[in-house]
């Protein structure tokens, strides 16, 4: 039986996923809600596969946790279970993902059997989903959605305000959010970000 460690900070999702995996006859050895708990449980149980949430709050991301676990046990299977349609939307520096890992977007999960398939096939690796944005567009979009002004974004990214404006325009084009009457483009972009990050339904 494949032993699995579930790392997820939302208690409802954690409980649901755990019971679903048990239903599919996986040995869920432990579940953890933070990076500290995750590493501790991992060292204790050394599971075959870890099901990891990408966003664990402040500090290291799920990707960092996975890297840390691989340093302890290189053959461990990694399945990311996240609401982000692209890891760069959480942290634009997450361009290099660990090798041999599966990436499952919660919103696209229709059946728990799909999760089971991801666990079984995680060693073969899988496609990391990418939205149609460059890393700098993703970063600008994230900062914009966090409520920063163009000046603040320019300061943080050490570029000119005009460059930020240009990036925002390009981002809108890439996301096909051209000018629509009665819609503020900035609001539309933020909404789209939150949709891609799985925080809401966003625009209809």
């Amino acid at each position, binding site marked *: 039986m494949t032993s699995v460690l579930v790392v997820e900070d939302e208690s409802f999702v954690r409980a649901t996923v755990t019971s679903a995996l048990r239903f599919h006859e996986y040995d869920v050895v432990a579940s953890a809600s933070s990076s500290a708990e995750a590493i501790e449980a991992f060292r204790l149980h050394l599971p075959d596969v870890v099901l990891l949430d990408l966003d664990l709050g402040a500090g*290291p991301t799920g990707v960092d946790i996975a890297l840390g676990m691989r340093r302890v046990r290189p053959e461990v299977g990694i399945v990311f279970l996240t609401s982000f349609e692209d890891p760069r939307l959480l942290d*634009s*520096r997450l361009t290099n993902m660990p090798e041999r890992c599966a990436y499952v977007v919660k919103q696209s999960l229709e059946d728990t059997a799909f999760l089971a398939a991801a666990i079984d096939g995680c060693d073969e690796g899988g496609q990391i989903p990418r939205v149609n944005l460059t890393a700098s567009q993703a970063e600008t979009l994230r900062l914009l959605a966090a409520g920063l002004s163009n000046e603040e974004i320019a300061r*943080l*990214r050490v570029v000119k305000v005009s460059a930020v404006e240009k990036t925002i325009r390009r981002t809108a084009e890439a996301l096909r959010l051209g000018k629509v009457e009665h819609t503020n483009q900035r609001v539309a972009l933020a909404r789209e970000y939150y949709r891609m990050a799985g925080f809401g339904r966003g625009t209809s």
Partner: protein
Amino acid sequence: MELRNLAPRLPRAILGLTWREHIGGRWAVSLVGFFVVTPVALLAAFTDVRVANAQQALQWAAISSASLAVMGGVWLLAAVTVLRNRNERPVPIWLVVLLGVTSGAARSATVVVLANQVGTLDSSGQLWPLLATRMATGAIQLGVGMPFLAVALSVLNRYRSERSRLLEQQAELVRRQSEELGASRALRDALADPVLRRLRELADRLAENSSTVPDIARDVRGQAHELWATSVASGGGIQVRFRQVLTASLGYQPLPIAAAFLFWLPSAFLSLIGRESIQAGVISSIAGTVVLVTVFMLGNRITHLRPNLGPLIFILGNLIGGSLAVMTALWFAGDRDLATEVPLILTSAVRLTSITLAVSLVEGAVRQSELVILRLQEGIDSREVELRSQVQQRAQLAKEVASVLHGVVQGRLAVAQRSSEDSAALARQALNEGIELLSASSVTTAVTAAQLAREVSEPWLPLIEVDIRADDGIIPAERVRDVGDVLEECLSNAFRHGAASRVDVELRQQEQGWLLIASDDGSGLGEVTRTGLGTSLFDAISGNDWSRKDLPGGGCQVTVQLSTD
């Protein structure tokens, strides 16, 4: 005597302001007057000697000693009677002038009368005019010299007490600051948490039907009012009365002192040379003063150009200036045979040097104290600014919590109270909304560097060992986020790209802000030269003032300057 041993320690003793133990209190004037003026007076006494033979020299020595004893007797009498009766009250300046005038006149009178008795008075003229002249010059010398010393010493004493007052104030500020910091960091405990707990309690009571909606509304109103009061009342700061103290204590002005000194000098010349003719004395003292001032100004100029020669030029200038001044004075007094006056010239020069040395030491001590106090004051000012901003943040949070209570919860409760049906459900909704808003309320507060470093690195500890060394200082609220971001970036870089297992974080407080040094044991920079999002974050936050390098034993070190101006 031990003067040579004392000399190196003397300036430090003055600059360290430890004189009060020896000369403080009401004895200061008399004792210091005695110890500073006595060698001077002694020298002056011997300049009176026209040594013809050993017997004459002995006579003059006896006369000088007797005159000094009379002067000391006047001081002792004054100290025992007048000054002592004033208890701890400060001695007024007129009393010091009076003491100087009396003792100076008494000393000169003793010299003239005794010299007249033994017949060694270097005068063929009448006794009474000479006695009057010498008493007047003696009175002027000490009448001006003693108050000057007294003023300088009292300024030093004031500085000393002001310094200890400022040190106490600083300690108090540090204490209050750490208290405020504790309060800021425990904002949830101090302000938001009790309110949150109370709201949850009220919600429970409502659910159990053990409390009515109007009761709950009253409760919330009370809490909101209390918080408003907190947010308004906590704006005060500490008033520093430093400037008033400084103005009050500083009768010290270099110009009046210089003027007093110059005024005193002619009278000194008068006593030196003008023993036969007042007219010759006045002319010679003016000429001598002009020469002396010229030499001083020249010395000043040289010192300005070659500062490290300062002390040497000072002493040489005094000796040369003093000799030249006395020679000039003698010349104008009609004594053209300078070769016979060498002992007089030399002793006068030494006398002058000792006086100016004493004056400049006192002045240096005053200036040094001034600097110490100004630095203390600056430190206190900057701490006060920090403290004020902390107090303001707390007030801001109190206001924020109060406005949630007042604007949201209380408003909704009022609606719930008026609603005939579903009153309890509406009230519950109001309370829940308050709980939600308060849970999310976030005000960034100032934090100690060590605390911030611990908070940022804490989630990384399972992955990477972090060793923190931070100076005891505070990172102001508006920079907390930036410093936190930079540190986070350092940690994640070390872990992700360097595969490090340990990072040493050092936060050094500097004049303009903080220096962050993160050294890891990872794979080093290697080929990593590309600029990424992390480097642009360093650029943005440090204003391009950062660097990174490979460490000799492996790993890499990132140094980021974080200004807080």
